[in-house]
């Protein structure tokens, strides 16, 4: 058993390896950690590299894969790549859920019956409130897409990212996601993290290394402590949660990560419920 597999089995290391598919996005949310926007530098990691990481992660003993961005579905080859990756390990892909026109939905055919779940952002139960930070039409497009994805047999999770939310508003949001076909166990609520554009807007909670789970995250720039690591501010990728620039072989980064997790004080980490 590899050191990674052992650490994962013992619960010392979360089993998911994340990768940043890209950094550009069709939206430009106020709290975006990566300053993503349609014209942001793309930093695409590439289909071959994603498959390679999936294979290496499985061999090292990781149990799950995560794909984030930017908006990963701007990459037209993504569905096929996700399907192929899921042959190695289950995949969770984060998306804003606004690109799924009828044609794009048809392009998701490779994902049907695969171990690929989508996590879609939906912050508020009212269109205007939701779209204030995420941009016009966001709410309508998400609410339109989710049931269609569920109908296709694709597992959908809803992620709500907020500074704070009143109970009554959260109740209405939960009623909405249930109505869209997403059960309570697939809804997560998390705080805005004060990095990227959130920093400029004075939003969110400051997150240090101990506040975020140690989930190995690979980007074109290197390997990071968590998907909250390779954020962008003033156009520059943050390095405070960088582990190594070397990501090939993945074991270099994974072993450094293991060493770092061993150095953390014992206790109730991930205190901010950031995930």
């Amino acid at each position: 058993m590899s050191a990674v597999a052992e650490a994962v089995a013992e619960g010392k290391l979360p089993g998911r390896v994340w990768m940043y598919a890209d950094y550009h996005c069709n939206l430009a949310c106020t709290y975006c950690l990566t300053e993503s926007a349609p014209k942001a530098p793309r930093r695409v990691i590439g289909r071959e590299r994603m498959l390679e990481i999936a294979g290496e992660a499985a061999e090292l003993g990781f149990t799950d894969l995560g794909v984030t961005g930017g908006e990963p579905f701007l990459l037209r080859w993504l569905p096929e790549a996700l399907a192929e990756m899921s042959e190695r390990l289950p995949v969770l892909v984060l998306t804003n859920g606004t690109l799924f026109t009828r044609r794009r939905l048809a392009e998701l055919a490779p994902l049907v019956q695969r171990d690929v779940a989508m996590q879609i952002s939906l912050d508020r139960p009212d269109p205007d409130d939701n779209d204030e930070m995420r941009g016009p039409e966001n709410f309508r497009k998400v609410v339109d897409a989710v049931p269609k994805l569920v109908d296709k047999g694709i597992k959908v999770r809803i992620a709500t990212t907020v500074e704070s939310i009143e109970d009554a508003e959260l109740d209405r949001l939960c009623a909405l996601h249930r109505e869209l076909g997403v059960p309570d166990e697939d809804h997560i609520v998390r705080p805005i993290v004060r990095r990227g554009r959130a920093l400029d807007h004075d939003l969110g909670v400051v997150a240090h290394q101990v506040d975020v789970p140690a989930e190995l995250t690979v980007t074109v720039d290197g390997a990071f402590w968590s998907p909250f690591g390779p954020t962008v501010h003033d156009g520059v990728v943050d390095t405070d949660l960088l582990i190594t620039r070397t990501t090939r072989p993945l074991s270099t980064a994974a072993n450094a990560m293991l060493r770092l997790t061993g150095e953390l004080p014992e206790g109730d980490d991930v205190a901010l419920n950031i995930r």
Partner: protein
Amino acid sequence: MATVRLLDAEQAPLLARPFYAKGDPGPIVASLAQVPELLETAMPFISTALGPSAISWRDKELVIVRTSAVLECSYCVATHTAVALDAGLSHQEVRALRGEEDIASAFRDPRELALLAWVGELAGGRGSVPAAVRDGLHAHWEDHEVVELTVVVGATMLLNRLATGLELPVSAGTERRLAAEGLR
């Protein structure tokens, strides 16, 4: 201004953080921090090669300042001029090492003269060190010392090229010290 971003403590990568624990670690660490796995292995090597060892502090600074002068590394010459003064070298000796005065008039000890002739060839020459210079060194220095001195020259050259290639800035403190000593 350096040609690359020098990482401050706030942006120090996880493996680089220990190097920032005592405050500003200087531009060599702040540049190498861009590649933490390299920093993590390079710094212990550099510290061992250039730090306290069987070779005396004075002898090490002779080698480091002379090598840096031969390679025309303004960062390392400035930084190690200050260190050489701390190690007890005279102004005249430092000037000679920097190529501003005649080495033969500043140094009299045959052991040091043999060392400096050899450093000049190893750091500045091409191919093998001429036999006479090599034999001159071995006449005064033990094998283990020759090995270590060779590594000191090599490590200094690595830093010379790093500092020159990345245009690392000399610290304000060093600039002030050299100005006060009349050695800028």
